[in-house]
């Protein structure tokens, strides 16, 4: 159980939750979050958006029952965190591009921070449905930020060569970004979402078919090489 330090809306239907937790985490990893006992059945996977010493931040969009409950929590309440889970991003390259769609930008923030710590030069494409959020936070680490509100962020991606491209967002958007970047970026990785029951690799519910066969998003992922995911 982790203490909630703050839980506030930062855009319509998007919340930022700061909790007290000082585990070692990698950018791209996630936690299974829970704030109820039996119902809903599953915990909800949410990426680590930021980490500062004793604090960790999640940014989540309210979609259904679980995130709705999260949104009602207040500073001083506790939330159950199971994790960190997943492989996380491998920090690679000096010239990187991040492409995030919607709340998929969340894990890219911690990634930007870590890449920056390694001296990388970062371009960020951030697509929003109706309003911008976290942009100033990205501004702290990124060399260049291109945002789009209401359109398709992938439409504005410029063909430029990068060492590594990191993509997170809806599957169609990731596919489009991959199509745009596969020839200009040396490596392209995506962060994939699947429904999860156990979150630890026993239930095989979060299966993704990759070029290398079946993989579990919760433990083999959520980060995969784009070419292994979009291979068909």
């Amino acid at each position: 159980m982790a203490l909630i330090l703050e839980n506030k809306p930062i855009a319509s239907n998007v919340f930022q939750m700061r909790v007290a937790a000082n585990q070692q985490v990698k950018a791209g990893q996630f936690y299974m979050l829970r704030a109820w006992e039996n119902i809903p059945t599953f915990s909800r996977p949410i990426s680590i958006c930021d980490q500062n010493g004793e604090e960790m931040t999640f940014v989540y969009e309210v979609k259904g029952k679980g995130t709705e409950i999260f949104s009602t929590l207040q500073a001083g309440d506790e939330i159950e965190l199971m994790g960190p889970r997943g492989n996380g991003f491998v920090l690679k390259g000096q010239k990187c591009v991040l492409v995030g769609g919607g709340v998929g930008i969340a894990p890219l923030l911690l990634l930007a921070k870590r890449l920056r710590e390694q001296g990388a030069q970062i371009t960020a494409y951030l697509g929003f449905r109706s309003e911008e959020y976290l942009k100033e936070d990205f501004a702290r680490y990124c060399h260049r930020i291109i945002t789009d509100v209401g359109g398709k962020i992938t439409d504005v991606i410029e063909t430029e060569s990068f060492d590594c491209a990191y993509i997170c967002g809806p599957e169609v958007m990731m596919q489009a970004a991959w199509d745009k970047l596969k020839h200009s970026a040396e490596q392209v990785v995506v962060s994939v979402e699947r429904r999860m029951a156990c979150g630890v690799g026993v239930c095989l519910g979060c299966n993704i078919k990759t070029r290398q066969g079946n993989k579990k998003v919760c433990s083999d992922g959520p980060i995969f090489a784009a070419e292994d995911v979009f291979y068909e």
Partner: protein
Amino acid sequence: MNRLGVDFLGFSLKNPIAAASGTFGFGKEYAEFYDINQLGAVCLKGLTLHKKAGNDGVRIWECTGGMLNSIGLENPGVKAFIEEYEETQARIQTVKIVNLGGDSLEEYVEGARLLNQIDIDILELNISCPNVKSGGMLFGVSEDSAYQVTRAVKDITRFPLMVKLSPNVADIAVIAAACEEAGADGLSLINTVQGMAIDIQNRRAVFDNVYAGLSGAAIKPIALRMVHQAAKAVNIPIMGIGGIYSGRDVLEFLMVGASCVQIGTAGFIRPTKLMEILAELKAYCEENDLFLKEIINII
């Protein structure tokens, strides 16, 4: 003085709680969260003779009080399992139950024969599999095919044989009796209840396979009823399964006739949930000066 100990198929289980097949993998993952040997037994992920890639599309879906799954028995196949068994065996010191499925009688028999090579404790026969030879109806829904597959596997296996029953039947007592007659040493029930979920947005079934298996608290009343019916119909011991989320739920299953239980879906609440249920059960027994053996089948 262990109030929680129960006997099952010749084994003295230190407590009646086992992990259910398909919700525990081969024990590796949860071993990082707690000492899995505190469990009375573990049922390993369901195997089939040949490796299976499992189903495409959405595989799990949350529903009120439970979940639907359509994993499609993804597994490495019996041979690969046997090859890696040394490692599995080293990890698990508690009673090891190996769950075996199949699409034909021959597959079941060949799988069971191969498993004779290694040292497992109990063989659990999952007969909720489509019988490809008889048009895809589950082995577990017809008295005859339940009898046949049980008989055939019993003839070849060197392990105590527990048959896992499907709840999608009109009369579980009939199937239970058929398995007993065919030589089953024990029964486990229930497997998931066939259900369905809809994706309204896209106007399609959520699962590529259309139907999927319902588990969790939602099915507990059904599971209790079926364990009770089966317990009244046979003289072999029963492992109760279905929607167990608490120590009190375990007691309910013992009272209606189970000697021990398996827990699946509840384990997804958090990795240590089975340990919490165990602790609750222990506390209840102590507070009420109860030995679990006393309450088995008293209703």
